[in-house]
């Protein structure tokens, strides 16, 4: 990707945005009087605000960049991450779980676990959560700084530190409230910043019929765009369920329907949306119970429509690349500096020796080396063209560089969304779209940092280090840990930049921890007999099951090692995604069975009275008859669920 030029107006828009988010933090600073104001917003925010923040906190790097990437790779089936993997869980959280989170007066999800079970469960959950959020935030910051570097030629270090400083400035001033308020602003920024890009892409492709036509050609021969080596039915990229029902070999995701519905739709999705403090914290900050319960429901409506904004661009990019319209291609994999340093002399040498295409390609590949190149594949005819040209008249290093980049066969899917932005946006709109991108990264980072500082202050520091201090002390700690949290995120960003593989392993381990989590919450909230020992050991057992499952299985095409199968090979999955979904399924079932069994074998430590407000059967039903019937969570939930089913049918 070549660096693009920004005009004054583009910088002006970015600066206005930065000024406003910092300004919001500045305005809110005088309301931050107690630790609860700072860390939990003092439970004072209206539902539409917490609802949009709920969505925005989850809208990190993953959403905009990653979903467009998946849209290109898998087409419309990516929307299962929304319609199957998010909406039902969000509705469940609102209708069934929020009453316990909010009603128990817990300040965090780990604190709920302590009230419901015991100190051990809270300790396990808060520690893993704290470490995880810091890494998640670091990974996202690394991705941002890399993108800004590739796209705008900005310095990696400078972009990383400046973006972090902006987030620090407003979170430190206004705490969670300021994170939530800016998340709402960021939500509108993201939607309004990307909508015109999607519109222009859609218009350029020629509308829905033209898009499905192009994508059916792509499905027939995805190898032409280096998307997939197989050939699929014409609707593989344009219908959500039919290719899935055809079995894992008939859809580009390589997933079967059970893994999709149970593994993603139930285990992973409920595990994330219903137990992850990052999102639940937003609902907990609402001003009253009914606002807290409406929070996930208000978020569900835009979430349902988001595929049009985040997945569609990926599909449009594939359709444009398939026709080769105006010379558009999917952004190629980025060649690293190290590889350039080896490849350029090899090209020069090959042209001096006047090697033939095959020998030249071999020479270059040899120079790059298997280890460094990863799965970098160069196109034979493009390399041959460089050699021919260079033989008649030596090309400059710069020219060889750009020609080499063009010769890469693999795609850099994460660059898809930006390739569309740069293709369609004139100066002005360009600034808006880039600001939207910045906003999405900042909202993700602020979300992580505010969840981290609360869990640290209340669940780790107050619980284990300084039990009976004044509230001023905890407020001070909340601020201090915000700075530390951001510094740790920056450290993680550098770590992610330098040790890509170590990062993959870390994320894998987090996957192990997260997979069984929902079983613990489900049993804890709906079965009074669940004991602390049962929950604790069940959680550990579930995590161990994920680890063992991973060690015994692998996805086809991967080599045993960090990608799994390092003990033995009991099963080979058609894709990593399938392996993931099945891993979660096994971990969940194991945690569920273990927790149930151990609970029955151990003595209850909490009386019925103590479980009031924490467990379904011990808690008086919430009376929401006073509210207008349309606004009751259960009614709203049913309406949203019905709308979601309709969407699934439309794109069947």
């Amino acid at each position, binding site marked *: 990707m070549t660096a693009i030029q920004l005009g004054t*107006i583009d910088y*002006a*828009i970015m600066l*206005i*945005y930065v000024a*406003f988010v910092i*300004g*919001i933090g500045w*305005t*809110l600073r005088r*309301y931050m009087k107690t630790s609860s104001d700072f860390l939990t*917003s*003092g439970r*004072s*925010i209206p539902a539409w*605000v917490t609802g949009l923040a709920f969505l925005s906190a989850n809208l990190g790097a993953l959403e905009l960049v990653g979903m467009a990437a998946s849209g290109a790779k898998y087409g419309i089936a990516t929307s299962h991450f929304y319609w199957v993997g998010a909406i039902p869980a969000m509705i469940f959280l609102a209708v069934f779980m929020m009453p316990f989170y909010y009603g128990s007066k817990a300040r965090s999800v780990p604190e709920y676990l302590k009230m419901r079970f015991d100190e051990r469960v809270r300790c396990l959950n808060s520690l893993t959560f704290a470490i995880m959020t810091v890494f998640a935030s670091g990974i996202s910051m690394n991705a941002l700084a890399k993108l800004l570097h590739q796209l705008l030629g900005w310095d990696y270090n400078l972009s990383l530190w400046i973006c972090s400083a902006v987030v620090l400035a407003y979170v430190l001033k206004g705490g969670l*409230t300021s994170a939530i*308020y800016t998340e*709402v*602003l960021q939500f*509108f920024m993201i939607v*309004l910043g990307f909508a*015109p890009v999607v519109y*222009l892409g859609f*218009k*350029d492709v020629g509308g829905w019929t033209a898009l499905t036509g192009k994508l059916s050609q792509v499905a027939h021969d995805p190898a032409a765009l280096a998307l997939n080596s197989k050939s699929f039915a014409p609707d593989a990229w344009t219908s959500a369920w039919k290719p899935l029902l055809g079995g894992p070999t008939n859809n580009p995701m390589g997933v079967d329907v059970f893994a999709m519905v149970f593994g993603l739709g139930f285990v992973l999705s409920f595990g994330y949306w219903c137990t992850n403090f990052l999102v639940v914290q937003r609902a907990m900050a609402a001003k009253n119970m009914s606002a807290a319960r409406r929070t996930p429901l208000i978020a569900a409506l835009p979430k349902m429509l988001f595929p049009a904004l985040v997945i569609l661009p990926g599909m449009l990019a594939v359709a444009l690349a398939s026709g080769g319209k105006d010379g558009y291609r999917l952004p190629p994999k980025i060649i690293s500096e190290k590889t350039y340093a080896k490849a350029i002399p090899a090209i020069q040498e090959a042209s001096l020796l006047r090697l033939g295409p095959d020998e030249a390609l071999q020479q270059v590949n040899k120079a790059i080396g298997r280890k460094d190149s990863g799965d970098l594949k160069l196109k034979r005819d493009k390399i041959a063209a460089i050699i021919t040209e260079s033989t008649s008249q030596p090309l400059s290093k710069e020219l060889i560089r750009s020609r080499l980049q063009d010769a890469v066969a693999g795609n850099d899917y994460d660059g898809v969304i930006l390739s569309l932005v740069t*293709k*369609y*946006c*004139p*100066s*002005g*709109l360009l600034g*808006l779209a880039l600001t939207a991108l910045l906003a999405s990264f900042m909202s993700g980072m602020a979300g992580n940092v505010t969840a981290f500082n609360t869990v640290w202050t209340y669940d780790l520091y107050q619980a284990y280090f300084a039990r009976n201090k004044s509230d001023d002390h905890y407020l001070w700690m909340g601020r201090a840990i915000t700075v530390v949290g951001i510094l740790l995120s920056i450290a993680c960003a550098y770590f992610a930049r330098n040790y890509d593989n170590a990062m993959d392993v870390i994320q894998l381990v987090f996957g192990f921890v997260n997979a069984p989590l929902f079983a613990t919450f489900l049993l804890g909230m709906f079965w009074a007999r669940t004991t602390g020992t049962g929950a604790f050991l069940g959680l550990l057992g579930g995590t161990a099951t994920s680890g063992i499952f991973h060690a015994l299985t692998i996805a086809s095409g991967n080599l045993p090692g960090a990608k799994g199968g390092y003990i033995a090979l009991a099963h080979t999955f058609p894709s990593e995604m399938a392996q993931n979904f099945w891993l979660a399924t096994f971990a969940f079932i194991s945690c569920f069975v273990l927790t149930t069994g151990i609970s029955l074998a151990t003595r209850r430590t909490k009386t019925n009275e103590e479980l009031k407000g924490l467990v379904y059967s011990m808690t008086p039903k919430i009376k929401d008859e006073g509210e207008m019937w349309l606004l009751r969570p259960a009614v709203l939930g049913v309406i949203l669920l019905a709308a979601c089913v309709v969407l699934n049918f439309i794109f069947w």
Partner: protein
Amino acid sequence: MGLDIRWPIGLMFSIIGALLLIHGVATGSDTEMLKRSLGMNVNLVWGLVLLVFGLLMLLSAKIAASAKKPKEK
């Protein structure tokens, strides 16, 4: 909390919208630039959309503020 978030959102989008609108008018004759956005003066159109959105936000914040005041005091 003391701040109605509609104020800053409304203000920010009004300013950005107005900027884009002016930029769109100023560069409306630059055909080379318009080619990129399929011949449409997208800055002008979208600037207008943002401006309207921002003003509506401000309006709704204003209405909420004036409805709240007599009740509280």
